[in-house]
């Protein structure tokens, strides 16, 4: 057919920047999560500890309120690195529950239905697809972990004054790095396990197994081999070891909870290894096609 007769032509209008294209996937992934009323309610509940924390900070700084309740509290004794660590402990475990709830459904559905082909037959690479999904999860988990943590830090620094904020600047790094590390590990692990088993319930179950059964196996190995290295199989243990150092928790804290035993570097190496294994698994299993063998 002569070119001039063609009524059909390729779209040649303006395009959005390629670097931000993955955000389309993040937006739709997050939106699909909030279609569940239960999930929305749970997300709101995850912010309750932050509200309680804010109320506590206000209370210890408000002489009027303390007078009304007949109490006398010292803000510097109460609101410190241990308090922030305690607050984040509740948040990171809520983040864990949220991950187990949200991620397997988000990933397995795409794989079980071969929807990956739909996405990857667009100008969207596998890393960009993963980035789209990860960013949706990380953003969501950040909203209930380090973001409220930093807001509480800001509130405390504002109400305390007298250079408290500048004296405790390191705490910002501890909150941010500690939470982001946790969020990254659980998000990657949930994605890798989901991609591996392609079944939502099994993926959720495996997450619990990795976090609560594997440490038991590690302790069994310790008992049999008379070593401490088995603790590196426990993600909660290695993360707590890192947190205690990041939050500069006192020695009595470490010994009291028996967090000694393996060196700090091995905890970092363990976390890094878990992340690398997850990335390798994702790279291997996240494909736009499947071949049945045998």
């Amino acid at each position, binding site marked *: *057919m002569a*070119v001039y007769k*063609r*009524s*059909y*032509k*390729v*779209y040649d*209008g*303006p*395009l*959005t*920047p*390629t670097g931000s*294209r993955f955000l*389309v*996937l993040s937006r*739709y992934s997050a939106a*699909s999560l909030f*279609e569940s009323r239960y999930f929305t309610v749970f997300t709101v509940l995850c912010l309750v500890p932050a509200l309680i924390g804010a109320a506590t900070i206000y209370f210890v700084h408000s002489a009027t309120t303390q007078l009304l309740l007949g109490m006398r509290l010292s803000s510097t004794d109460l609101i410190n690195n241990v308090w922030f660590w305690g607050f984040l402990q509740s948040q990171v475990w809520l983040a864990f529950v949220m991950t187990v709830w949200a991620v397997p459904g988000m990933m397995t*559905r*795409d794989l079980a*239905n*071969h*929807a990956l*082909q*739909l*996405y*990857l*037959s*667009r*100008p*969207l*690479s596998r890393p960009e697809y993963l980035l789209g999904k990860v960013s949706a999860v990380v953003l969501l988990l950040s909203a209930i972990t380090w973001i409220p943590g930093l807001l509480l830090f800001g509130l405390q620094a504002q109400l305390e004054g007298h250079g408290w904020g500048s004296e405790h600047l390191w705490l910002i790094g501890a909150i941010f790095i500690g939470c982001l590390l946790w969020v990254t590990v659980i998000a990657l692990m949930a994605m890798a396990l989901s991609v591996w088993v392609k079944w939502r319930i099994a993926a959720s179950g495996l997450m619990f197994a990795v976090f609560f059964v594997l440490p038991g196996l590690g302790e069994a190995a310790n008992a049999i081999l008379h070593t401490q290295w088995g603790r590196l199989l426990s993600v909660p243990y290695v993360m707590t070891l890192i947190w205690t150092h990041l939050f500069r928790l006192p020695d009595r804290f470490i010994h009291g909870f028996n967090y000694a035993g393996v060196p700090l570097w091995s905890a970092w190496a363990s976390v890094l290894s878990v992340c690398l294994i997850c990335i390798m698994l994702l790279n291997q299993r996240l494909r*736009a*096609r499947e*071949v049945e*063998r045998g």
Partner: protein
Amino acid sequence: MKAENNKIVFENVSKFYGEVLGVNRVNLALPPGVTSLVGPNGSGKTTLMNLMTGLIKPTQGRVSVLGLTPDHPEEFFRHVGYCTQFDSFPKGVTGYQFIYQSLKLHGISNNEAQRLTKEAIERVNMGEAASRRIAGYSKGMRQRIRLAQSIAHHPTVLVLDEPLNGLDPMARAESITLFQALGKDGLHVIISSHVLHEVDKISDQVVLMSYGYVVAEGEIHGVRSEVKEHPMQILVRCSRPNLVASRLFCQDHVVEAKLHVDGMGLLVRTQDADQFYLLLNRIVLEDDIAVETVAPADDDVNSIYQYLIGGSGGTV
């Protein structure tokens, strides 16, 4: 413009999934128009489609689509639209959202994406159902909305894996008309289908595949004439068929002439169709035969499939 820039080219392409053969040593140059990929399950049709849509990379050889490769995804995917065979949709989305989202992934701005979404929905006659959730669609509606998302960004290469599956006769006819219209517009429309008689109706050329190899490719009549070991069958409805049969049977290239029971026609099997037609013309003029119909009886995809690959006809 290089000739290759208007073709889908496979140069000695092989694809292995570990030990499993996908396709082997494929050499093709598909021109614009409707091309059908035909072959039994596991013959490599979907692998070939995945290769031309950049979803997988060849183990060996080179694939280029209109001179483009998936190494430049922005330009490549602007030209390629893919409708997979799988019934896969993100959870909870409406037909409109499904197409809109895919256009956003192409990087198309909000206003343009809205316009193109509406246009694609209209093109597949899904206007009334577009605002409903896909989960509530019938199989045929799902197929059509998938088709809409594959054409929404105006690709020049449209790859459709089993696009007629699950469609009712009306939707089938509409889809076929749409494919033909797109083919006439100069698009490359690549279709894999198990419904051979429909493939036959819409295809400009055909690629026959078996066990990962391309068995034959080209324009249907051309492929048929290349299948020398199976004499071509030609149906002739005429007066005095016994006379025609006796005259024809004197020729070496005519291997069989079977009279119809109603005495008004015959089925001829010949190894040289061109010679046969010349001879028939002569007989008709010399003996004053009244001819009602002369038509090839096995010059279609179904017959070619049976001759080259085997198995029953109709649907594969």
